[in-house]
Structure formats: structure tokens, C-alpha cells
């Protein structure tokens, strides 16, 4: 027997009732707040800051920043000006349509250690020396290759 893993559509009269109580204006207000929060977060990431660093820039607690990014915050003009100033953008940029979004950022450190090879690491050639372009390859040439060491997060 195959088990369906698809999400089923949930219909509830109570839910429909709640939705019908939300006016188009309220929907638009919620959407604007969420888009504004997403735009600020995106600009924060573009600057390479995390929440704590951003909180420091705008002299707020990190918990306040979390609240901002929840999309429920009703920002005042003063706060938006402060945010725009810290991000180094014009206040209108906060409302601008996102053309390019940063969706991923990661930093890793990799270390390479050169070891003396115990095997020949040179490509075997038919002659002792062959020329490709401006490169010389020799059978006797010793090559040293790095070993990968990844520092786990």
C-alpha cells in the first residue's frame, strides 16, 4: 500500500470566517510590513552583518532586531531613517523592489599542508621532456601537493 505524503487541503469554516474579516487594506499593510522587514534583513546581510552586529550599529538590543524581522513591526519614520543611515542607503531604498537578493553567504577556512610525496606525482610522458604551450613537464620534476584539512564549524 502506498502512503500519500502530499499535504491535504484543510477547509475550516472558522478559518474562512477569520479570513473574511481581514480587509484588503489590512492585507496590504501586512504585506508591506513583511516586505520592509525582508528588505532590511537583506541589506543587513549584504553588509555582511549578523543580527548582533546590526543591533550594535543601530544601538538596539538583538531582541528588538528579531522583532523587526518578524514582519509585524510598525516602523516610525525616525526609526526607518536610523536604519537607512546605519545601512548606508537612502530611506527610499528600503521600500524599493528587490532586483538582486543575497540568498546565501558562508565562510569557511581550509588549510593545506605540503608533504613530501612518497609517490611520483608527475604526469607520465612518452619522452623525458615535452612542451605544451609555455609549460615544461619533466619526469624528474617533483611535485608537492597539499592535503585538505577542513575546520568544521
Amino acid at each position, binding site marked *: 500500500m502506498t502512503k500519500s505524503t502530499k499535504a491535504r487541503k484543510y477547509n475550516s469554516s472558522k478559518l474562512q470566517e477569520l479570513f473574511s474579516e481581514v480587509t484588503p487594506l489590512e492585507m496590504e499593510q501586512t504585506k508591506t510590513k513583511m516586505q520592509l522587514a525582508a528588505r532590511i534583513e537583506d541589506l543587513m546581510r549584504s553588509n555582511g552583518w549578523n543580527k548582533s552586529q546590526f543591533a550594535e550599529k543601530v544601538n538596539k538590543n538583538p531582541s528588538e532586531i528579531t522583532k523587526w524581522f518578524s514582519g509585524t513591526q510598525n516602523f516610525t519614520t525616525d526609526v526607518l531613517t536610523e536604519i537607512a543611515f546605519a545601512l548606508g542607503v537612502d530611506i527610499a531604498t528600503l521600500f524599493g523592489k528587490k532586483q*538582486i537578493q543575497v*540568498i546565501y553567504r558562508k*565562510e569557511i577556512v581550509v*588549510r*593545506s599542508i*605540503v608533504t613530501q610525496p612518497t609517490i611520483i606525482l608527475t604526469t607520465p610522458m612518452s619522452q623525458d621532456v615535452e612542451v605544451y604551450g609555455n609549460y615544461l613537464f619533466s619526469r624528474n620534476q617533483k611535485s608537492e601537493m*597539499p592535503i585538505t584539512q577542513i575546520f568544521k*564549524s
Partner: protein
Amino acid sequence: MGKIKNKDIKIEFQVRAIELLNSSLQLPAIPNASITNFNFNISIESRVDAPNKLVFVIVHIDIKNDDQSLVLGALSVSCIYEIANFEEVITVEADGKLDLPQLLIETLNSISISTTRGVMFSMFKGTFLHNAILPIIDPKQFQSPQTVIDK
């Protein structure tokens, strides 16, 4: 054109451009000191241009000495990919944020790092960084986005 399967969606993409954004060398002023061990501080970032169906993967590498006290060189490469079936693959959330499948992120990151390895070798060949070959990186390292290793 590359094709990868992510659950039910087949992702079709191609490399549109490779840009060398920056490269620099800085020979340390330590006489007769041969530098053999290197640290590669890699910063990788993906940007999406939805209207043009483009994904930019920008790889920046700082090459440092063994104890990370000196920056010996730096290189930035941007790989630009076009996702043919962009609308099928990339979902837009309610707040306007774009969501890329993890498999696509990992694949594009792996290709971009390999490309950067080649560009780096080409740029630094014959210099004191000739042997600074970027080691192979486990794609699992690219999981859990937004986590930054504190240095």
C-alpha cells in the same frame, strides 16, 4: 546545459559568464623564508537576479600563511549561471524572499569553487603562490546557510 534532479523538478542551468573581480599578491618581507603551508579563507555568496533568471556565485579567497598572520594573496571570482526553468525551481515566499533548493546551492558552489581553483592557479602560476593550490572541499561544508565560522 547542466541538468540535476531535485525531487520531482529537473533543474536546467548553464554558465553564462565568469568574471575575475579582483586578484592581488603580497610578497612578505621575510628574507629566505619559504612559505609551504597555506590557509585559504573562503567567502562564498549567492545572489539572485530573478527578472533575468540569473544566479551569481561570488567566491572570495584570502590566502594566508600558516599562522594566519599574513595575507599573501587574494582573489575574487564571480560565476554567473542562468537557470532555464527558473520559475519551477526557485520559489518566492510571502515576504518576497527567494528560496533556492539546497541541492542547487551545493552544485553551483562546487562548480564555482572548482572554477576559482583553476582561475587562481592561472593567476598565480610562476609566483611564490604557485603551490598554493586550493584543496578539495567537501560539499557538505556548504550546508546550513547563514552560519559563519568565527575566525
